[in-house]
């Protein structure tokens, strides 16, 4: 004997319910967002969530421009630029933030590796940039002194 009529209609109802939920919130379910990386409380964990365990080295080929002193930690301007070929991703971190990963950029084929972004810094600390090129990660960082913390 197959499934009962009751079971059959229950399963259809369940499918309709989940389909209607998905149509109301399509963006939330299908938007790409690396929650593991953005929620990591430690910078190295966030790096691992983003890039796995690729070999990493410090690099002077990534130019990171930040103010030495930020009057307002809520608005710290960061610029990143590099002449290194083959960069496919650049991520910006504020080491002393509750969740260090601030933003991650895909460096798409037509993009130049020149970016600027205003970030929040909770307190004085390092702004860290990681660039991925090939199967290697390249790191640079600079200390920013923050006069007034930016996380409310």
């Amino acid at each position: 004997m197959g499934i009962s009529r009751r079971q059959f209609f229950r399963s259809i109802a369940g499918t309709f319910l989940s389909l209607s939920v998905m149509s109301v919130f399509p963006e939330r379910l299908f938007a790409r967002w690396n929650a593991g990386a953005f929620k990591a409380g430690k910078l190295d964990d966030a790096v691992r969530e983003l890039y796995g365990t690729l070999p990493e080295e410090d690099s002077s080929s990534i130019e990171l421009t930040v103010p030495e002193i930020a009057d307002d930690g809520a608005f710290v301007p960061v610029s990143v630029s590099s002449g290194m070929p083959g960069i496919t991703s650049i991520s910006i971190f504020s080491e002393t933030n509750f969740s260090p990963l601030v933003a991650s950029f895909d460096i798409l084929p037509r993009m130049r590796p020149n970016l600027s972004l205003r970030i929040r810094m909770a307190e004085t600390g390092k702004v860290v940039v990681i660039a991925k090129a090939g199967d290697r990660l390249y790191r640079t960082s600079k200390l920013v002194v923050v006069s007034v913390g930016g996380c409310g």
Partner: protein
Amino acid sequence: MKVKAVAVNEVVSVKLLIPHPMETGRRKDQGGNIVPAHFITEVTASHKGQEVFHAEFGPGVSRDPFFAFQFDGAKAGDTLTISWVDNKGSSEKSDFPIVAM
């Protein structure tokens, strides 16, 4: 969204300002209640159907995100389409002209 996209020798420099509260979810209001997290999670830009920018943002991006990027292969008169999504499912998508210097 406020966008300025300028083409010089087919290299386009784009500056954007997206008004958005970018609440971290850790701030307390006057009454001592936590203001829920509300922030842009993803921004995309495309030109002639090709993606020319894609970024994931978290609550560490400042309120009213202000950012800039550059891409190749577009001329003044072309159109740049920019869209964003936030963690509450809101989104916006608009076209902007690429202008000459």
